[in-house]
Every structure is written in structure tokens, then in C-alpha cells.
């Protein structure tokens, strides 16, 4: 007689169904009290009934059946009993169970611990009981029609039961291991990190100090950030800067801390003569990483404060300039952002930025504290009086940055004669070298160029190498004015593939739209004044300055030259991440190498190898 005679094969499925009903009631119908009660009660009854039947079957098999059948029934009865135990443990973890046991906990935390422990326990007991029962039930059912002989069949079902038990125990163990690993997690962050080294601009700045630079580091001894900061200043000292580094513990040296007004660990005090600057860094490496990447920028900002007092840079408003509030929506639509990056750059160079409108000086005279005036992409023309004010400002030796935009009503007027530069508002385009951004024809207006003169106002860009290009979105062009008495120096030129896009279709169609090298920027020094004229204004927007380090260097070097601080020109070292941008030509190369080149290479290599192996096999 086979073991299948002892209890029906579907009894295990009744057990599983009962447990599923309890799950349904407790998890899914927990909001509806009646439905929950019905489902949970029915499920529990099914589990209890199937367990009782299985125990009875085992007793019957022990009394009447062969011993091997009794062994299988005993295993199954044990599994069913385990499921009942799991249900009981679950009940004890509920509020009803706890009140039945009259458990009184000291606080919510203790209650939570009790509940968690029971939840883990009932889930484990349920898993190690149900899975063996199901596997044995499947094995049982597979041969229910065949009477394969008692011993062999019992062996088979018994082995299936054991396999289920091993799998359930292994699963439970792995679950616990995973839980412990999650609780006691350790991580290793191998993402890119490097503390910035001193850039040439910072080095030049530090060298220009009359008195030696004193650097006081206030870090706890164990802080790994201190080592990184020390390395930075040692590199600065190696580049010929006279400096002395002192290490202090803020708590151990309270007098020194008080003297320098240091209230936080991680403070770096820079001092030269009686001027002070400070950089405050986190002391934990995890938090300090981002700041250490741009340490050079922070140090340079503070050094500038030691070299001179803050200056004022005026930005004109009221003519639809990029910094004018009326331009915000237009710039946002183009995805260019505003001019916050330009403002930050001026702040970094120790300038305070103020607006210059008709009421604050543009109607009478540029304020005397103006170190530089910036006119960024006006869309409307200036009043003759306003142009006259700027002309007078230049006549008395002022500094002016003019960034002009095609398709605007702005006219240079008297400034054309003063600067010796004429702006042509016909936009330029390039169908061969341009940056892909929008994925349509208008991208051809996003010109790139690496043609820079050796003038100090573009010094960093000219030294950056041939692979460093600046981006000029939708520029116009500059020419020397006919009746000029001063001679402009053209600083930046387009690539020879650019052309005049007279009809605005981004195609070089017709002899009038001729290709050539056009001027994009000019530096002028009429008498003691200094002026920079750019045939593009959007190159100073946030989207461009934050994504192109060459554009940022053009802006920084330009402001330094206008402020007569060209000796401090140079790079600001940064280990901040950079956007990946490429021209259309690079795009094509990358596309073919990634899409076709590599797979074709692998296929050819593999197939040739297979063929050779087969041929040598045949010959052998």
C-alpha cells in the first residue's frame, strides 16, 4: 500500500490556502474589521482542521500502515503543527494577543522589540514548516496514482521533505544574514575625488602679497581633512609663495582660537599684514569631499580680500539685458538660465555687483566708485544720453564690458567711434563645427572655437591647448570701424567653416553667405580707458559658464584685465565634475565607434577564431 492512502494529497493545499486567507485578512483587509475577522477566522480554522486531520492520519498510519508510511505522515504532521505554531506566534504579536497575555511594557521601544522578535519568529517557523510540506505534498501528488512500492515512495517523499526543509532553512539564514549586513552596513566609496591643487591665478595672487602669508589650521588631530588642506598649502609654498602654516587644536589652544575668533573646527585662517580671511571646512571626509574639490576657488576668494578691498561692478538694466528681469522668461525658454554664474564669478573676484539704471547713474554719470561697467546683451537701444554717459565714463578712463546680441535694437552710437569697433548684427552659423544640444538645425548657431589671440584678456584660453574650445551661442560679428582713431585688438575668431546666416535658415546658401573667419571679441584701450566688446552675450549665461571652463576663463580674464589686475590672470584649479559635451564631428565618431565599431570587431574576431579552430580540428 502506498503512502497516499493515509491522507488526501490536497490536504497540504488546504493548509496553504488557510494561511493565504489569514494573510489576506491581516494584510489586505486589515481596514475592514468584519471582512478581516471572517477571512482570518476562516483561514485559521482551515489550518487547524488540516493539521488535526494530518495528525489523525499519522496516528492511523502508525497503528495500521507500514512504518515507512508512518514516517512520512509524521514529517507532514510536524510541518502542519509548525504552521499552527506560526499562527499562534503571529497572534501573540498582535494587540489582541498581547492583551490576552496581559503583557505590560515599560515603553514603546520595549513593545516594538517584542513585536519584532515575534514577527521574525513566526515568519521563520511558517517558512520552515510550509515549504517542506508543500514540496512533500508535490512529490506525494506526483505519484498518487501509482503504487510504486511503500519503501521507495516513502524515501522519495521523505527526501523531498528534507530538500524543502534545507531550502527553507537556507533561505531563512540568508534572510537573517542580509538583515544583519544591512544593519551593520559598511561602504567603500570609490567615486572620483581629489583635492584641488593651487591654480596659477591663486599662485599669482599669493605671490603679489607684500607680506608673507600666514595660514592657521584649526582641525582636530584625527581629522583626515587636515592632511588634505596641508598638502594644498605645501604645494602653494613649493610654487614660490612665502607662507607659514601653523596647526592648532581649537579646544587645546583656546587663546589662539579666541584671538582669531575661531568657533568651529575645520577653520582655515589666512592672514597677511593685518588683513584676515577664512575658509571653514567640514572635519569629516565624507562631508568635506565636495568642498576640497573646489578648495582653490575658496582660497583664491579669501586671498583677494587680503590683496585689496572690495570693488563695485555695475550692470546696466532697463534695456532687456540678460540680467534684466524681463529677460528671465526668454532665457529660461532657451535653457540658458540667468547670469547668476557671472555674478558669482564677480563675487569670487572680490567685486560687489550693483545695478546701473537711468535713475541710479546712467542718466547723469556713472558713479565714481565703479571699477567696471557691464552691458550684457541689451535688446533695446540706449537713449542718446545714456550712450553719452558711457562715452564720458570711458573718456575719463573707465572700464567697460560690452556683450552684444544679434537681432537686437541696440546701436553703439558714439561708442563706435570711441572704441573703433563696429558690431554687425547678422548672426553667424556653422554647419560643420557646432555643439549638439537641441538636436535640430538651430544647433548650428551654437558655434565653438579655439582661435584665441595671445592678448592677456584671453590668456587662459589661449594657453589651454587646441582641444579647449569656447562656446558662442548665436553670435554676431565685429569689425574695425571705418573712421576709427583707435585700433582694436581682435581676441577671438570663428573657425573657417562658419558663415553669415543672412536668411536665418542655418544653411550656407549663396555667395553672400560666405564662409570665413569672423571676429567675435575685441579689446580696446582708448587713452587710459579699457573696453572689451563681445559679439555674443549668451556666452555669459549660467548654462554656458557652468558647462564650459573656457567660457568661464574668458569671463574671469576679461574682468581681471578691465580691473587692471591682469597680473593675477590664470586658472582656478577645480576637481569638480564637468559636463561631457562634444561637437557634431565628435558625435559622429563616437556614434560609429560605439554602435558599430566595437560589435563588428568582436563578431569578426570571434568568427575568425571559430573558423580557425574548426579548420585545425578537421586537419587534425
Amino acid at each position, binding site marked *: 500500500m502506498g503512502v497516499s492512502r493515509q491522507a488526501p494529497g490536497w490536504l497540504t493545499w488546504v493548509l496553504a490556502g488557510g494561511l493565504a486567507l489569514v494573510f489576506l485578512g491581516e*494584510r489586505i483587509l486589515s481596514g475592514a474589521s468584519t471582512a478581516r475577522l471572517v477571512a482570518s477566522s476562516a483561514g485559521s480554522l482551515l489550518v487547524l482542521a488540516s493539521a488535526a486531520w494530518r495528525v489523525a492520519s499519522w496516528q492511523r498510519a502508525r497503528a495500521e500502515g507500514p512504518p515507512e508510511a508512518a514516517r512520512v505522515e509524521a514529517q507532514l504532521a510536524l510541518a502542519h503543527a509548525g504552521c499552527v505554531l506560526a499562527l499562534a506566534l503571529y497572534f501573540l504579536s498582535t494587540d489582541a494577543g498581547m492583551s490576552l497575555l496581559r503583557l505590560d511594557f515599560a515603553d514603546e521601544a520595549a513593545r516594538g522589540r517584542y513585536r519584532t522578535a515575534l*514577527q521574525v519568529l513566526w515568519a521563520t517557523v511558517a517558512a520552515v514548516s510550509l515549504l517542506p510540506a508543500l514540496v512533500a505534498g508535490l*512529490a506525494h501528488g506526483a505519484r498518487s496514482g501509482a503504487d510504486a512500492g511503500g519503501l521507495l515512495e516513502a524515501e*522519495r517523499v521523505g*527526501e*523531498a521533505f528534507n*530538500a524543502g526543509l*534545507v*531550502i527553507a532553512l*537556507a*533561505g531563512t539564514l*540568508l534572510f537573517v*544574514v*542580509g538583515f544583519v*549586513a*544591512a544593519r*551593520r*552596513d*559598511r*561602504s*567603500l*566609496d*570609490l*567615486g*572620483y*575625488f581629489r583635492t584641488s591643487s593651487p591654480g596659477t591665478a591663486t599662485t599669482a595672487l599669493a605671490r603679489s602679497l607684500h607680506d608673507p602669508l600666514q595660514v592657521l589650521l584649526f582641525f582636530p588631530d584625527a581629522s583626515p581633512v587636515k592632511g588634505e588642506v596641508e598638502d594644498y598649502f605645501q604645494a602653494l609654498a613649493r610654487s614660490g609663495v612665502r607662507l607659514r602654516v601653523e596647526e592648532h587644536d581649537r579646544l587645546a589652544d583656546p587663546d589662539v582660537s579666541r584671538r582669531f575668533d575661531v568657533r568651529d573646527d575645520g577653520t582655515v585662517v589666512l592672514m597677511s599684514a593685518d588683513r584676515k580671511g577664512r575658509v571653514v571646512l567640514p572635519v569629516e571626509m565624507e562631508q568635506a569631499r565636495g568642498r576640497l574639490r573646489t578648495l582653490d576657488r575658496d582660497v583664491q576668494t579669501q586671498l583677494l580680500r587680503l590683496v585689496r578691498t572690495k570693488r563695485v561692478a555695475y550692470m546696466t538694466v532697463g534695456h532687456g539685458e540678460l540680467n534684466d528681469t524681463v529677460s528671465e522668461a526668454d532665457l529660461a525658454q532657451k535653457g540658458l538660465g540667468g547670469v547668476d554664474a557671472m555674478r558669482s564669478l564677480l563675487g569670487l573676484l572680490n567685486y560687489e555687483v550693483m545695478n546701473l539704471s537711468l535713475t541710479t547713474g546712467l542718466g547723469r554719470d556713472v558713479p565714481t566708485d565703479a571699477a567696471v561697467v557691464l552691458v550684457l546683451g541689451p535688446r533695446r537701444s540706449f537713449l542718446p544720453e545714456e550712450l553719452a554717459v558711457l562715452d564720458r565714463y570711458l573718456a575719463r578712463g573707465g572700464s567697460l564690458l560690452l556683450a552684444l546680441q544679434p537681432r537686437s535694437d541696440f546701436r553703439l552710437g558714439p561708442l563706435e567711434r570711441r572704441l573703433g569697433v563696429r558690431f554687425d548684427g547678422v548672426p553667424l552659423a556653422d554647419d560643420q563645427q557646432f555643439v*549638439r*544640444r537641441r*538636436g535640430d538645425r538651430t*544647433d548650428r548657431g551654437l558655434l565653438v572655437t579655439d582661435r584665441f589671440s595671445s592678448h592677456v584678456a584671453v590668456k587662459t584660453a589661449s594657453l589651454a591647448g587646441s582641444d579647449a574650445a569656447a562656446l558662442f551661442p548665436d553670435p554676431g560679428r565685429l569689425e574695425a570701424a571705418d573712421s576709427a582713431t583707435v585700433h582694436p585688438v581682435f581676441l577671438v575668431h570663428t573657425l573657417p567653416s562658419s558663415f553669415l546666416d543672412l536668411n536665418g535658415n542655418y544653411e550656407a546658401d549663396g555667395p553672400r553667405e560666405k564662409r570665413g573667419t569672423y571676429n567675435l571679441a575685441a579689446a580696446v584701450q582708448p587713452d587710459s580707458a579699457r573696453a572689451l566688446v563681445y559679439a555674443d552675450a549668451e556666452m555669459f549665461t549660467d548654462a554656458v559658464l557652468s*558647462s564650459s571652463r573656457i567660457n568661464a576663463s574668458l569671463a574671469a580674464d576679461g574682468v581681471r584685465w578691465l580691473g587692471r589686475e591682469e597680473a593675477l590672470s590664470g586658472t582656478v584649479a577645480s*576637481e*569638480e*565634475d*564637468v*559636463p*561631457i*559635451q*562634444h561637437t557634431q564631428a565628435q*558625435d559622429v565618431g*563616437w*556614434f560609429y*565607434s*560605439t*554602435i*558599430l565599431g*566595437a*560589435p*563588428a570587431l*568582436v*563578431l569578426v*574576431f*570571434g*568568427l575568425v*577564431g*571559430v573558423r580557425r*579552430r574548426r579548420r585545425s580540428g578537421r586537419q587534425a
Partner: protein
Amino acid sequence: MRSALVIARRELAGYVSTPMGWIVAATILLLDGLLFYALALGPAAGPRLSAEVLSRFFWTTSGLVPIAAVTLSVRLLTEERQLDTLVLLSTAPVRDREIVLGKFLAALAFLALLTLLTVYMPLLVLVNGKISVGQVGVGYLGLLLLGGAVLAIGLFASCLTRHTLLAVALGAAITAGMFLLYPLGTVIDPPLGGVLRALSLHGEHFFGFQTGAMHLRDVVYYLSVIYFFLLVSTKVLEAKRWE
């Protein structure tokens, strides 16, 4: 262990000495290149920071590696059954766990080769961006662990049936189910939601690898999944001896 290595070597030779293995490799590379270009690097993806481009590369590749793993693994035992060579293997002096381990190691080695062939894509980012070799290494470790886990699932599916198509469907269903646990876990209340997210094959277990952060919990998770499914496969193979 030696028997497992002998089986692994034989299986691996089967992959590299047939055109099919190379065709699969080239197809996966082609798809990965397309996805990399469309979603991470190309103009349609827009200007992105280099670390972000790399993270997207690992994210797109982590969608392809499971497909390759399922394709590679389901034939491991179904083919033996179809060709009636499993009997030979079963009667040979090797244990079931050595058979399972040997086949798994062979598939893992080929999957590793296939995955590492994509290394030129992160290298393209490395040239122009600021990413570290460690970040690339951690990303690939994550891909191998994920691939290994799916291989173990596929191997389990191939133990269950002699029909390749059914095995593919089973392996893909289990893998997809374990992938979907993460989004499911985000909409289900705790503690069950948390348990589902912790069991998910992708989601929070792969995020760290994408950004170069290796977490002990994630490594333990993937190794647990591999061990569990290899154990279940061994048990199924043992049970099949009764047939």
C-alpha cells in the same frame, strides 16, 4: 571542486567555439552601444556631468546583463536533457552540486567576458570627464553580481523543464518579478514594503554600484541570491534523479 572546474571548462569552450556565443556578444554590445548613446552620451541625453553619464551607462547595462544572463543560462541543463546527455552526466562520478556549480561558473565566465567587452564605453567618459577607475571597477562588480544572480535564477529555471522556451519564460518571469519588487515595495506600507524592496534584484541594491559606492549589504544580498538559487537548483536536480 575539480569536477566542477572540468565541467566549467567544457561548457566555456562550448560558448567560445560556436558562432552563437559571439553573435550573442556582438548583439549585446550593439544594444548596449545604442542605449549608451541614446540615454547617456548622445545629444538626445543632453549635457551631463561625467559621473552622471557613467552612472547612466551602468544603469542601461544593468538592464541588458539580465537579458544576456537569462539567454545564456537557460540552455545549460535543458539542452543536456534534450540531447539526452544529462543521463551521462548524472551517472558520471560527479555530484549534483558540482554539475550545477560547473555550469554556473562557465556561464558566469562568459558573461564576465561579454560585460567587460563594454569597457571602452566608460573609458570614453574617462578621457573627457572626471571619473575614477575605482568607480568603473565598482560598477562592473555590480554588473557581475547582478548577472551572477540572474544566471543562478536561469539555471534554476533550466533545471525545472526540458523545454528551452519554457525555461526562458520561467527564468524571465522570476527575474522580472524580482526586479518589480522594488517599485512594488515603494507603494506598499512598511514593514512588508521594506521587505519587498530589500528582496528586489535591482533598485536599491544596484544604486550604490552605479555611483561607485560599494555597500556590504548589497554584495551580501547578491551572493545570497546566487547561493540560494544554486542550492535550489541542486535540490531540484537531486529530485529529478527519482524520475
